[in-house]
């Protein structure tokens, strides 16, 4: 009953905001934005029965859906739009006879499909991870160590290790590679030196979204186009959605090189009602860290960008009501009216809506931790230690050998070499000519 999977929030210290209860219950993202008003659909992935609105009773243990995680028959399924209730097709007594420790299927059913489709959110957690090849994930490959999610994300009293910085802020309860591997695991000292400042993931996850594409950009502002009064969808040649009337347009990407940031394990979040500056991209979660911070290391992240709805007068993000459960409830996916969706959604979060909306650019930072490659595919030295287009080209504030140099030293040094060379050539030529002349005149 104290688990985060159950409560969808936990008490965290948020930099600059103090101690707050944050989690999926109240944090906004730049995918489907937020659950408020949309519980009927979103909460299919809650480990409860019937979390359909804010009145859900979190104190009643009979509301806990044990089977979502503990079904080992791989037949358990929650109903679409059912607020967490099982699908009517499920044979519950069969499932009840096959319970056990969570398998990849249990976790993946929710965590691979967050944001409304396969690999939408993470980029490193998706369908192929149900049974990945070694090239995709050395840890979880059945032909490799065949690890289950819970082998790393171990739990005591259902409090699992590991968390996502889309909804958490503090440096605690993390899964670290060092729980199994040592802090200096390489035979090469030079590589071991790196572990002071570089997280394992940075070199060992050269790309993410290795098998299926992940969403990189979501433009809500184009949503609402209709054909003959009906919503429609457009797919690209690979069969990926690029436009949906209900959600707007998307850009997807596959085999992506991560972005890199300094990260010390603490984060801050945009919380409902915070004011924003529409002239620049709003970071919904800020991951802290810098070279000078002894707790920070370089980590790979996926940056998800979006354009999402905000109140142009009050200057805060709008929690729209997207899901529609009955006619006239304002759900955007049925009515395609942003004003109504904003009005109804903001009621759910108890904030006024001015009646004026616009779209603001937002960014979210998702650390990439899975899809660890076999060591033969690890990022090579020269991919960062290079003057041009290195993987770390955007990280500043520190000296990276091979990338950085002091322009003055470079100028004077090269100048010195050129002068020395020129001097020897000139001196040598004059010597040679004078010598010949002398010999000739003798």
């Amino acid at each position, binding site marked *: 009953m104290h688990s985060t999977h159950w409560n969808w929030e936990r008490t965290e210290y948020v930099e600059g905001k103090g101690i707050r209860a944050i989690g999926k219950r109240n944090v906004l993202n730049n995918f489907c934005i937020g659950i408020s008003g949309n519980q009927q659909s979103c909460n299919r992935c809650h480990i409860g029965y019937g979390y359909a609105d804010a009145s859900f009773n979190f104190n009643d243990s009979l509301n806990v859906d044990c089977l979502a995680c503990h079904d080992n028959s791989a037949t358990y399924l929650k109903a679409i739009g059912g607020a967490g209730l099982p699908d009517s097709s499920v044979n519950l007594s069969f499932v009840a006879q096959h319970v056990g420790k969570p398998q990849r299927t249990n976790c993946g059913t929710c965590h691979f499909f967050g944001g409304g489709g396969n690999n939408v959110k993470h980029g490193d957690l998706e369908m192929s991870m149900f049974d990945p090849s070694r090239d995709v994930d050395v840890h979880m490959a059945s032909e490799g160590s065949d690890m289950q999610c819970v082998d790393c994300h171990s739990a005591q009293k259902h409090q699992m290790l590991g968390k996502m910085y889309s909804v958490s802020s503090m440096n605690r309860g993390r899964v670290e590679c060092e729980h199994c591997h040592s802090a200096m695991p390489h035979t090469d000292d030079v590589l071991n030196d790196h572990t002071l400042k570089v997280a394992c993931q940075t070199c060992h996850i050269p790309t993410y979204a290795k098998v299926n594409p992940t969403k990189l950009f979501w433009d809500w502002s184009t949503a609402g186009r209709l054909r003959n009064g009906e919503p429609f969808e457009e797919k690209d040649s690979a069969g990926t959605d690029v436009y949906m009337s209900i959600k707007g347009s998307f850009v997807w990407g596959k085999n992506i090189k991560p972005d890199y940031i300094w990260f010390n394990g603490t984060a801050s979040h945009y919380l409902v009602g915070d004011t924003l500056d529409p002239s620049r991209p709003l970071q919904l979660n800020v991951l802290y860290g810098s070279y000078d911070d002894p707790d920070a290391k370089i980590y790979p992240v996926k940056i998800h960008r979006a354009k999402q709805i905000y109140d142009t007068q009050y200057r805060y993000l709008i929690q729209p009501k997207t899901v529609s459960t009955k006619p006239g409830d304002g759900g955007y996916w049925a009515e395609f009216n942003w004003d109504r969706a904003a009005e109804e959604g903001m009621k759910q979060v108890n904030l006024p809506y001015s009646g004026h909306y616009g779209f603001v650019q937002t960014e979210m930072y998702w650390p990439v931790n899975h899809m660890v490659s076999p060591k033969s595919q690890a990022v090579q030295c020269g991919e960062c230690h290079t003057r041009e287009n290195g993987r770390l080209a955007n990280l500043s504030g520190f000296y990276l050998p*091979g990338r950085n140099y002091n322009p003055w030293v470079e100028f004077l040094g090269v100048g010195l070499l050129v002068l020395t060379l020129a001097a020897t050539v000139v001196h040598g030529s*004059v010597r040679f000519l004078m010598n010949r002349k002398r010999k000739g005149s003798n």
Partner: protein
Amino acid sequence: MKKEYVYKAFERFWHWAQAALIIFLGVTGFEIHGSIRFFGFDQAVRYHNVAAISFIILIVFAIFWHLTTGEWRQYMPTWKNLRAQAEYYVFGIFRNAPHPTRKTVLSKLNPLQKLVYAGLKVLVIPVMVVSGLLYMFYRYPQHNEILSLNIGSLEVIAVLHTIGAFLLVSFFIAHLYLGTTGRTVTSNLKAMITGYEELEEDSVDNKAQPVSHEPVLTK
């Protein structure tokens, strides 16, 4: 002219090993620096580190040799003839004027050489070794939280190391060329290979120099 044993076996070994190591350290170092592509960054680092350790070992032996033989005195910089030597390279050399400094076994360096070599030995090489070692081991104080030894940034270390590297490479170029300005174009080279060199028997400039007691071969 008489042929004298100028460069002892260790000295010659030291010279050529040092030359090879500095060239190799220069190539691998400037690959690490991003100026050239040759071995690939990871191999360059590996080779640079191995060569650096070898270089340090060689330096230890060289210091021992210089101290025990007293040869270190050869490098004491002097004002005497410094100007004459510089003028020789700018004017005299073109007119086939005699070398202003007489080379003898006990004083085989001219004043400019003394100055430059002493500078390398007491300044450039120590800077390279110290900055190189700090570059190599900068992690350890920080990781073990010896904060007083903590190196916040590699930048200063790397910049010093790079300055030294540029100086060494330009020294190398000048050294190669000046090596051809001996009695004949190749006489210095031959001397450093065989140890023997034809030296003038006496000179007006260097009456004060003691006469060699080394075994002497005459032509």
